[in-house]
């Protein structure tokens, strides 16, 4: 399931290379491409018995190419190391990596790969793409804002997905009265120009 995405990361297409060269030419067109992990954060909020509980991931990687002046040509993929999950307590982390949830042994990572990006006006954008978790792929769209400061680009956004569509929280945890189906993912990605 994840092969096509992996292929893209290893071997940039000629078109992408050409784009990078082109983007480097005019001084004002800055392409943000290098993830700054220490200034980036991916977290999620689940609802347990009506209580919003925040968790996050300590390790993730991303390959970006974003030029705010030409959003349509942008491409992004983000890969999250699911074993770096912080679900609030050690007991919860172990549970969440287990078979009923992420099942990190066969499925150690989750990936998002953008397929289209459009400007919504101002500093607002929307990324559409494929989310792959636990071997299942779903289309999602994530609105975000983009701001430049001190030579870096900051992407801040969120999207909601239904965990059961990915088989996350199977078995007894399928009871959505206890843990809601909707999970919100929040991201804050800092990137430097290439």
């Amino acid at each position, binding site marked *: 399931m994840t092969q096509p995405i992996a292929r893209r990361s290893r071997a940039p297409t000629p078109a992408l290379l050409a784009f990078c060269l082109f983007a480097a030419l005019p001084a004002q067109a800055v392409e943000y491409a290098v993830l700054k992990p220490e200034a980036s954060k991916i977290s999620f909020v689940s609802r347990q018995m009506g209580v919003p*509980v925040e968790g996050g991931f300590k390790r993730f990687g991303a390959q970006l190419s974003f030029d705010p002046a030409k959003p349509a040509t942008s491409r992004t993929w983000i890969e999250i190391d699911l074993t770096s999950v912080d679900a609030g307590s050690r007991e919860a982390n172990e*549970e969440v990596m287990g078979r009923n949830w992420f099942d990190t042994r066969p499925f150690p990572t989750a990936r998002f790969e953008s397929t289209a990006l459009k400007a919504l006006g101002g500093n607002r954008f929307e990324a559409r793409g494929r989310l792959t978790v636990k071997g299942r792929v779903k289309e999602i769209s994530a609105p975000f804002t983009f701001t430049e400061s001190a030579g870096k680009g900051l992407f801040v956004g969120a999207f909601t997905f239904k965990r059961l569509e990915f088989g996350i929280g199977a078995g007894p945890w399928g009871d959505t009265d*206890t843990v809601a189906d909707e999970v919100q993912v929040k991201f804050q990605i800092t990137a430097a120009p290439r």
Partner: protein
Amino acid sequence: MPAYTRTAIVLHWLIALLICVALPMGLAMQELALSPLKLKLYAWHKWLGVTVFLLAVLRVLWRATHAAPPEPETMPPWQRTAARLAHGALYALLLLIPLSGWLMSSAKGFQTVYLGVLPLPDLLAKDEALGKLLALVHEQLNHVLLALVIVHVAAAVKHHRVDRDDVLVRMLPWLKH
């Protein structure tokens, strides 16, 4: 015969009943492995505890404005003092135990959402060490409560069966001698 007001009696028994559920529930729920049932029990435990707190606040206000009937003439002074101290401690625990539970939840990073709809503010930020400490405080206060309630019940039975005074009947008017 001097008596407690109907309100005082209803509050006493309602709170006693809720404690009889919340306390064993607190002990049992932590032993469970993580499961939907465990999450449910934790939530219900907190809702019960918050309910006890609200009723206890009402009860303390009521008590402050409605004196308890005087102790029977036959009671030795040391017993009166002991009874007053014990009742004061019980009232304090009815407030402190839920407060410690609420603060503990905040420190552990889990907000309390009463009945699943009303979020209570988090006075403390997430802090693992503080969460552990408050869990210990919550537990120890509960041990004190359990010990006091046992003495309290034993005293009530002694008043009724040994002293044969009206102490139990005035809190439990449905009971005939």
